[in-house]
Protein backbone atom coordinates (compact mmCIF):
# COMPACT_ATOMS: atom_id res chain seq x y z
CA UNK A 1 0.00 0.00 0.00
CA UNK A 2 1.14 3.56 -0.71
CA UNK A 3 2.54 6.01 1.85
CA UNK A 4 0.00 7.56 4.17
CA UNK A 5 -1.12 10.98 3.01
CA UNK A 6 0.72 12.78 5.80
CA UNK A 7 4.01 11.15 4.75
CA UNK A 8 3.87 12.01 1.06
CA UNK A 9 6.51 14.59 0.07
CA UNK A 10 6.26 16.88 -2.92
CA UNK A 11 8.80 14.78 -4.78
CA UNK A 12 6.60 11.69 -4.42
CA UNK A 13 3.82 13.17 -6.53
CA UNK A 14 3.36 12.38 -10.22
CA UNK A 15 3.17 15.14 -12.80
CA UNK A 16 -0.09 17.00 -12.42
CA UNK A 17 -0.74 14.79 -9.36
CA UNK A 18 -1.98 12.17 -11.82
CA UNK A 19 -2.89 8.88 -10.15
CA UNK A 20 -1.32 5.98 -12.05
CA UNK A 21 -2.26 3.08 -9.83
CA UNK A 22 -5.47 1.65 -11.30
CA UNK A 23 -8.28 0.91 -8.89
CA UNK A 24 -6.36 2.53 -6.03
CA UNK A 25 -9.57 3.70 -4.41
CA UNK A 26 -9.78 0.14 -3.09
CA UNK A 27 -6.98 1.06 -0.68
CA UNK A 28 -9.30 3.58 0.96
CA UNK A 29 -11.03 1.40 3.51
CA UNK A 30 -14.43 2.92 3.98
CA UNK A 31 -15.55 0.03 6.18
CA UNK A 32 -14.68 2.17 9.19
CA UNK A 33 -17.55 4.44 8.23
CA UNK A 34 -20.28 2.00 9.09
CA UNK A 35 -22.16 1.65 12.31
CA UNK A 36 -24.12 -1.41 11.20
CA UNK A 37 -22.96 -4.50 9.33
CA UNK A 38 -24.92 -7.05 7.25
CA UNK A 39 -25.23 -10.47 8.82
CA UNK A 40 -26.14 -13.43 6.60
CA UNK A 41 -28.30 -16.32 7.80
CA UNK A 42 -27.11 -18.84 5.22
CA UNK A 43 -29.93 -21.27 6.07
CA UNK A 44 -32.37 -18.79 4.49
CA UNK A 45 -30.21 -17.75 1.55
CA UNK A 46 -31.48 -18.94 -1.86
CA UNK A 47 -28.33 -17.74 -3.69
CA UNK A 48 -30.33 -15.47 -5.99
CA UNK A 49 -27.56 -12.85 -6.06
CA UNK A 50 -29.94 -9.91 -5.51
CA UNK A 51 -27.69 -8.53 -2.78
CA UNK A 52 -24.72 -8.63 -5.16
CA UNK A 53 -26.72 -6.84 -7.86
CA UNK A 54 -28.09 -4.12 -5.58
CA UNK A 55 -24.99 -3.31 -3.55
CA UNK A 56 -24.12 0.27 -4.59
CA UNK A 57 -20.47 -0.21 -3.69
CA UNK A 58 -19.91 -3.49 -5.48
CA UNK A 59 -18.61 -4.94 -2.24
CA UNK A 60 -20.73 -8.05 -2.05
CA UNK A 61 -18.74 -10.88 -3.53
CA UNK A 62 -19.32 -14.56 -4.25
CA UNK A 63 -17.35 -16.77 -1.90
CA UNK A 64 -16.16 -19.50 -4.29
CA UNK A 65 -15.77 -22.03 -1.48
CA UNK A 66 -19.34 -22.10 -0.13
CA UNK A 67 -21.09 -20.26 -3.01
CA UNK A 68 -22.70 -17.73 -0.68
CA UNK A 69 -22.57 -13.98 -1.29
CA UNK A 70 -20.64 -12.15 1.43
CA UNK A 71 -19.98 -8.48 2.18
CA UNK A 72 -16.41 -7.18 1.91
CA UNK A 73 -16.15 -5.61 5.35
CA UNK A 74 -13.16 -3.46 4.43
CA UNK A 75 -15.47 -1.44 2.21
CA UNK A 76 -19.04 -2.12 3.27
CA UNK A 77 -20.50 1.12 4.58
CA UNK A 78 -23.52 -0.54 6.17
CA UNK A 79 -26.18 1.12 4.01
CA UNK A 80 -28.54 -1.83 4.46
CA UNK A 81 -29.72 -2.03 0.86
CA UNK A 82 -28.79 -5.70 0.65
CA UNK A 83 -30.92 -6.48 3.71
CA UNK A 84 -33.82 -4.53 2.30
CA UNK A 85 -33.69 -6.17 -1.14
CA UNK A 86 -33.07 -9.77 -0.08
CA UNK A 87 -36.25 -11.66 -1.12
CA UNK A 88 -35.58 -14.43 1.42
CA UNK A 89 -34.96 -11.99 4.29
CA UNK A 90 -31.70 -13.77 4.91
CA UNK A 91 -29.74 -10.61 5.72
CA UNK A 92 -30.17 -8.53 8.85
CA UNK A 93 -28.30 -5.40 9.88
CA UNK A 94 -26.60 -5.63 13.24
CA UNK A 95 -25.02 -2.80 15.24
CA UNK A 96 -21.26 -2.78 14.97
CA UNK A 97 -19.85 -4.22 18.14
CA UNK A 98 -18.10 -1.70 20.34
Amino acid sequence: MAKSESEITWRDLNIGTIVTEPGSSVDYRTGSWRSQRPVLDSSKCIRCGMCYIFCPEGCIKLDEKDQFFKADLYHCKGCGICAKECPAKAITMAEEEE
Partner: protein
Amino acid sequence: MTTSVATRNQLYEVRWHGRGGQGAVTSAELVAQAAIIENKYGQAFPSFGPERRGAPVVAFVRVNHDQPIRIRAEITRPDAVVVLDPGLLQVVNVTLGLKPDGIVVINTRKTAEQIREEFKIKHALAVVNATRIAKEVLGVNIVNTTMVGALLKATGVVKIESLTEPLKARFGKLADRNFASMKTAWEQTVVKEKE
Protein backbone atom coordinates in the same frame (compact mmCIF):
# COMPACT_ATOMS: atom_id res chain seq x y z
CA MET B 1 -14.57 16.74 39.19
CA THR B 2 -17.69 18.48 37.96
CA THR B 3 -16.56 22.08 38.13
CA SER B 4 -12.85 22.12 38.70
CA VAL B 5 -11.50 20.87 35.40
CA ALA B 6 -12.86 23.52 33.03
CA THR B 7 -12.51 26.57 35.21
CA ARG B 8 -8.90 25.82 36.08
CA ASN B 9 -7.84 26.60 32.52
CA GLN B 10 -8.06 29.93 30.73
CA LEU B 11 -8.81 28.41 27.34
CA TYR B 12 -10.65 25.10 27.43
CA GLU B 13 -10.55 22.95 24.32
CA VAL B 14 -12.78 19.98 23.49
CA ARG B 15 -12.61 17.68 20.51
CA TRP B 16 -15.67 15.66 19.49
CA HIS B 17 -15.47 12.39 17.58
CA GLY B 18 -18.51 11.16 15.70
CA ARG B 19 -19.63 10.02 12.30
CA GLY B 20 -21.07 12.24 9.59
CA GLY B 21 -24.79 12.54 10.25
CA GLN B 22 -24.60 11.84 14.00
CA GLY B 23 -24.66 15.52 14.95
CA ALA B 24 -21.18 15.97 16.40
CA VAL B 25 -21.04 19.48 14.99
CA THR B 26 -24.41 20.32 16.54
CA SER B 27 -23.26 19.25 19.99
CA ALA B 28 -20.12 21.36 19.64
CA GLU B 29 -22.27 24.28 18.52
CA LEU B 30 -24.63 23.91 21.49
CA VAL B 31 -21.76 24.00 23.99
CA ALA B 32 -20.26 27.10 22.35
CA GLN B 33 -23.65 28.80 22.36
CA ALA B 34 -24.15 27.95 26.02
CA ALA B 35 -20.80 29.55 26.83
CA ILE B 36 -21.83 32.66 24.89
CA ILE B 37 -25.10 32.83 26.80
CA GLU B 38 -23.10 32.71 30.03
CA ASN B 39 -21.33 35.83 28.75
CA LYS B 40 -18.19 33.86 28.12
CA TYR B 41 -16.48 33.32 24.79
CA GLY B 42 -17.17 30.21 22.79
CA GLN B 43 -16.05 28.93 19.43
CA ALA B 44 -17.18 25.81 17.59
CA PHE B 45 -16.42 24.42 14.18
CA PRO B 46 -16.29 21.12 12.30
CA SER B 47 -13.23 19.52 10.77
CA PHE B 48 -13.47 21.25 7.46
CA GLY B 49 -14.24 19.44 4.27
CA PRO B 50 -16.94 17.63 2.34
CA GLU B 51 -19.37 15.86 4.63
CA ARG B 52 -20.06 12.18 4.07
CA ARG B 53 -22.59 10.31 6.14
CA GLY B 54 -20.90 7.64 8.26
CA ALA B 55 -17.36 8.88 7.77
CA PRO B 56 -15.55 9.67 11.02
CA VAL B 57 -15.81 13.40 11.65
CA VAL B 58 -14.34 15.66 14.22
CA ALA B 59 -15.76 18.84 15.71
CA PHE B 60 -14.09 21.36 17.99
CA VAL B 61 -15.16 23.63 20.81
CA ARG B 62 -13.15 26.29 22.59
CA VAL B 63 -14.43 28.10 25.67
CA ASN B 64 -12.75 31.00 27.41
CA HIS B 65 -14.18 32.71 30.45
CA ASP B 66 -12.95 36.20 29.77
CA GLN B 67 -10.80 36.48 26.65
CA PRO B 68 -12.01 36.53 23.06
CA ILE B 69 -10.87 33.39 21.30
CA ARG B 70 -8.62 34.30 18.42
CA ILE B 71 -7.03 31.02 17.46
CA ARG B 72 -8.34 29.89 14.09
CA ALA B 73 -6.85 26.46 13.66
CA GLU B 74 -7.82 22.93 14.65
CA ILE B 75 -7.37 21.85 18.25
CA THR B 76 -4.24 19.71 18.55
CA ARG B 77 -3.98 19.44 22.34
CA PRO B 78 -7.51 19.14 23.69
CA ASP B 79 -8.44 19.24 27.36
CA ALA B 80 -11.30 16.83 26.76
CA VAL B 81 -12.34 14.44 24.04
CA VAL B 82 -15.91 13.25 23.50
CA VAL B 83 -16.63 10.03 21.59
CA LEU B 84 -20.19 9.75 20.30
CA ASP B 85 -19.84 6.36 18.63
CA PRO B 86 -18.03 3.61 20.56
CA GLY B 87 -17.12 1.85 17.31
CA LEU B 88 -14.80 4.76 16.57
CA LEU B 89 -12.45 3.61 19.32
CA GLN B 90 -11.39 0.81 16.96
CA VAL B 91 -10.64 3.07 14.01
CA VAL B 92 -9.60 6.48 15.34
CA ASN B 93 -6.96 7.40 17.88
CA VAL B 94 -9.28 9.53 19.97
CA THR B 95 -6.67 10.40 22.58
CA LEU B 96 -4.25 11.91 20.05
CA GLY B 97 -2.82 15.08 21.58
CA LEU B 98 -5.04 14.85 24.67
CA LYS B 99 -3.34 16.67 27.55
CA PRO B 100 -2.08 14.35 30.32
CA ASP B 101 -4.66 15.83 32.70
CA GLY B 102 -7.34 15.62 30.04
CA ILE B 103 -10.44 13.43 30.08
CA VAL B 104 -12.06 11.08 27.57
CA VAL B 105 -15.86 11.07 27.59
CA ILE B 106 -17.30 8.01 25.87
CA ASN B 107 -20.71 6.74 24.88
CA THR B 108 -20.45 3.05 25.70
CA ARG B 109 -22.21 0.21 27.42
CA LYS B 110 -18.90 -0.95 28.89
CA THR B 111 -17.53 0.19 32.24
CA ALA B 112 -14.64 2.58 32.55
CA GLU B 113 -12.43 -0.27 33.70
CA GLN B 114 -13.29 -2.35 30.64
CA ILE B 115 -12.57 0.59 28.33
CA ARG B 116 -9.29 1.28 30.09
CA GLU B 117 -8.28 -2.36 29.76
CA GLU B 118 -9.35 -2.82 26.15
CA PHE B 119 -8.06 0.43 24.70
CA LYS B 120 -5.18 1.09 27.12
CA ILE B 121 -6.39 4.60 27.93
CA LYS B 122 -4.53 6.09 30.88
CA HIS B 123 -6.37 9.40 30.96
CA ALA B 124 -9.32 10.24 33.19
CA LEU B 125 -12.46 8.63 31.81
CA ALA B 126 -16.14 9.41 31.85
CA VAL B 127 -18.55 6.79 30.54
CA VAL B 128 -22.28 6.65 30.01
CA ASN B 129 -24.59 4.52 27.90
CA ALA B 130 -25.92 7.45 25.92
CA THR B 131 -27.32 5.13 23.23
CA ARG B 132 -29.65 3.52 25.75
CA ILE B 133 -30.66 6.86 27.28
CA ALA B 134 -31.30 8.44 23.89
CA LYS B 135 -33.40 5.48 22.78
CA GLU B 136 -35.43 5.63 26.03
CA VAL B 137 -35.89 9.37 26.36
CA LEU B 138 -35.75 10.55 22.74
CA GLY B 139 -36.87 7.41 20.99
CA VAL B 140 -33.99 7.60 18.53
CA ASN B 141 -30.40 6.47 18.51
CA ILE B 142 -28.98 9.98 18.12
CA VAL B 143 -26.74 10.71 21.06
CA ASN B 144 -25.28 14.13 20.33
CA THR B 145 -27.37 16.16 22.79
CA THR B 146 -27.29 13.38 25.36
CA MET B 147 -23.49 13.36 25.30
CA VAL B 148 -23.40 17.08 26.05
CA GLY B 149 -24.73 16.05 29.46
CA ALA B 150 -21.87 13.61 29.85
CA LEU B 151 -19.31 16.26 28.90
CA LEU B 152 -20.75 18.69 31.42
CA LYS B 153 -20.71 16.11 34.20
CA ALA B 154 -17.08 15.29 33.40
CA THR B 155 -15.80 18.84 32.95
CA GLY B 156 -18.33 21.48 34.01
CA VAL B 157 -17.21 23.52 31.02
CA VAL B 158 -20.62 25.25 30.98
CA LYS B 159 -23.66 25.02 33.25
CA ILE B 160 -26.32 22.60 32.10
CA GLU B 161 -29.03 25.25 32.48
CA SER B 162 -27.27 27.34 29.82
CA LEU B 163 -28.21 24.72 27.24
CA THR B 164 -31.91 25.53 27.56
CA GLU B 165 -31.93 28.48 25.15
CA PRO B 166 -29.67 26.95 22.48
CA LEU B 167 -31.71 23.72 22.57
CA LYS B 168 -34.93 25.65 22.14
CA ALA B 169 -33.51 27.63 19.22
CA ARG B 170 -32.21 24.47 17.56
CA PHE B 171 -34.91 21.89 18.33
CA GLY B 172 -38.07 23.88 19.04
CA LYS B 173 -40.71 21.51 20.42
CA LEU B 174 -38.19 18.71 20.89
CA ALA B 175 -35.95 20.85 23.09
CA ASP B 176 -37.43 19.63 26.36
CA ARG B 177 -36.89 15.97 25.53
CA ASN B 178 -33.35 16.66 24.42
CA PHE B 179 -32.73 18.47 27.69
CA ALA B 180 -34.18 15.54 29.60
CA SER B 181 -31.87 13.12 27.78
CA MET B 182 -28.94 15.42 28.49
CA LYS B 183 -29.87 15.64 32.17
CA THR B 184 -30.23 11.87 32.45
CA ALA B 185 -26.76 11.39 30.97
CA TRP B 186 -25.47 14.05 33.33
CA GLU B 187 -26.82 12.03 36.26
CA GLN B 188 -25.64 8.66 35.02
CA THR B 189 -22.17 9.52 33.74
CA VAL B 190 -19.48 7.79 35.78
CA VAL B 191 -16.21 9.67 36.06
CA LYS B 192 -12.92 7.97 36.90
CA GLU B 193 -9.62 9.72 37.62
CA LYS B 194 -6.59 9.00 35.49
CA GLU B 195 -4.31 6.08 36.28
